[in-house]
């Protein structure tokens, strides 16, 4: 997960070995599927950051277009993060009624609804 890097690097002063151990632990403990989801999350985050930078540095003129694009990244990010926590086997007892397949269907439905509103709002 990308926020791992950005947030912890700011607090990197205590020991760089801690970050290293975190990375190590993440690499060791996380199943491949979740890593795949995390890669998607990193991509979404980069895309959102890029849009936000453009908005700040250049212009926010079609504000609805900016909001549509930016909230599509945010919405997709949280939906994917929700999917990640739902399918994470560590959280199995928290999500008793949501199987991984159900979680994926929910994710798909949520994304479709989200992108319907995004397209409508782009103008």
């Amino acid at each position: 997960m990308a926020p791992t890097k950005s947030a912890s690097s700011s607090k990197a002063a205590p020991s760089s070995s801690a970050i290293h151990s975190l990375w190590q632990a993440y690499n060791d403990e996380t199943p491949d599927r979740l890593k795949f989801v995390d890669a998607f999350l990193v991509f979404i985050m980069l895309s959102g950051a890029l849009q936000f930078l453009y908005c700040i540095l250049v212009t926010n003129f079609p504000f609805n277009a900016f909001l549509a694009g930016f909230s599509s990244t945010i919405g997709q990010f949280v939906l994917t993060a929700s999917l990640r926590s739902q399918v994470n086997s560590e959280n199995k007892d928290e999500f008793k009624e949501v199987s991984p397949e159900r979680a994926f269907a929910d994710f798909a439905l949520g994304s479709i609804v989200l992108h319907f509103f995004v397209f409508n709002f782009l103008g």
Partner: protein
Amino acid sequence: MPVAYPLPKDLSPATVANTASLLRIVALALISGAAIASRLFAVVNFESIIHEFDPWFNYRATKVLAEKGFYEFWNWFDPTAWYPLGRVVGGTIYPGLMATSGVIYSFLHAINLPVDIRNICVMLAPGFSALTAWATYMFTKELKDESAGLLAAAFMGIVPGYISRSVAGSYDNEAIAIFLLMFTFYAWIKALKQGSAFFGTVAAVFYFYMVAAWGGYAFITNMIPLHSLVLILMGRYTNRLYVAYSSWYAIGTLSSMQVPFVGFQPVSTSEHMGALGVFGLLQIIAFSQLIHSHLPSKQFKTVVLGSVISIGLLGTAAIVTLTVRGSIAPWTGRFYSMWDTGYAKKYIPIIASVSEHQPTAWPSFFMDLQFLIFLFPAGVVYCFKQLRDEHLFVIIYAVVASYFAGVMVRLMLTLTPIVCVTAAVALSELLDTYIDPQEPDASAEVADVAAPSDNASAATPSKKVKKAAAAASAAPSNPISDLVNANAPAKTKKASKSRGIFGLDTRIAVIFNTTMMLLFFVAHCTWVTSSAYSSPSVVLASTNPDGSQHIIDDFREAYYWLRQNTAEDAVVMSWWDYGYQIAGMADRPTLVDNNTWNNTHIATVGKAMSSSEEVAYPILRKHDVDYILIIFGGLIGYSGDDINKFLWMVRIAQGVWPDEIQEPNYFTPQGDYRIDDQASQAMKDSLMYKMSYYRFSDLFGGQQATDRVRNQAVPKVGPTLDYIEEAYTSENWIVRIYAVKKEDPLGRDLKSANAFAEGKKRKRTKPMTRRRAII
């Protein structure tokens, strides 16, 4: 296991379950029927028309939607409202209500049921009240069980606090909004319980519908974040909360911005910042949890925690700075006046002038909720005892809504659902206890009492009892307790060993009392609905001495006179209360209407009404006013007339022109507001006074004329009018319409022209006839 009354033994669990669900369906159908039927008093007693003021605009907009289609409605610019300015309707309304009736209209026409759009508008609120009862059932089911849900649905179906805003003919936003409110909350609870993004999405979609339907959506926008925040602060953060909140917020916020009237508000006003803040907080917490799960070292955990807290503080600081700098708009006056209750009266008289915005008196709580208001705290206490996540929601909702309902009469409407829910929970808990046929084991009781210190002897019987209770509830021989305890956790079973009710007499006493209370509730609701909330304000009903009904229909009489006897583009000036009705019924352009978006324009009308004719006339001419319409109740004692509203006109005008209009001028030197001989000069000169009492004293044929609203004697010599003339006065003098005269052709001011015409009339006539004779 002793039982208080015998139970049928040969029923299979499947039969019990099927019967229970059949009973539920029948009960819900009957509740829907009761909810719809109890709202029809106004239609049955009078006729199927739109009541009140606001619904007339909604109706007019819906007619545009039904006749011209959705795109025309969406881009509708109404040049007849706010006369010189016009109104962009598509961008200044919540279109959910009109769209709903439009969809129903098209659907009914598609299946060859050509129903008039007016009847759809009239019957929309009763129809949706049935849905509200169902949504309340679903919501309460999540809190306790189906039986509590049914009780809540029954309460919600007939409770006067909700009926008052949803009788047939009351075509207002609240008609569908309460259903959407309850269903959004239901979906939210469900999403939170299951941690399902699906229900989060459903909550977001219904939130979107709610945003499109009612300005009260801000209540949801703040309730859900508040609930989440309390959950976090109580250490109840779970991944389910993250999933539910994130999916609701991300989709809900984006969708709410699709409504043109809301626009960018969700990212730029203070009302919505709480939701954004909690969203950010949840991301931080979720992220730190993820790191926690991967990190072994303890120091590093504290470092991460510190950085997370500092990020949170930075975010809060950022929101605060943006608000202070003005990038995020502060609270609007309407919202702010709910915290600072003196604010509206001081700074925005137009908000304070609406009678619905006054604080609520105690009797109206009882009037609207009857015995539910007494069960309400008991239900909240029950929620405290259970205290699952959804119970916290109910507690917060109860506290917040109670406060708002205390501040503003109109917000009683948002309190009503939660009162029904909590009261139903409390009552069903009571009934559960007293209907449950299992009696506590007397021997266990005795053993517990006899040997409280001796653990061994006490434990054995209680263990036995527990086993027996489990067996009893599992066995098919005990269907009713099965049914009652369907969703109850094992705790009640445990409780039933030591606590419970002995014998039939106590049960019957309590259940009989409860039943009587419920019956009285039904009687009260019916009585309140029929006597207080089912009177259309368009027609006034009074009773003749012989008991028959006498209908005063002056409003429509006058509006139809306007509609049929004036030019189509004749501009009508009236106080803003009647703007929508004039546009809806008389179909004429108005200067101001109930959508009070332009305070200065309203103040202009207030100034014209409260100043003398000479001052008012240029204002009238500049605004192309052809007719002035006022409401006068002095003849038949209709108290909601314009003389009683006159002080608000003065106040609103004074807010804009403080040096021309001063409120104290309209009082007598003693500080009284009078209309008789002692009335102040400004009062007597004001256009409103002159129009109201013009020719009024003639009506009494030389006797003392009395104003029956103010109970004051009207001066014998009535006011005279120079710049306007009486055009129409309705049968009971409720509506009086005056025409504004054109400028004098000779360029004199109208006052001297009138004086000239009156003074010289006799001398003029003779030469005229003589000349004619010569020719």
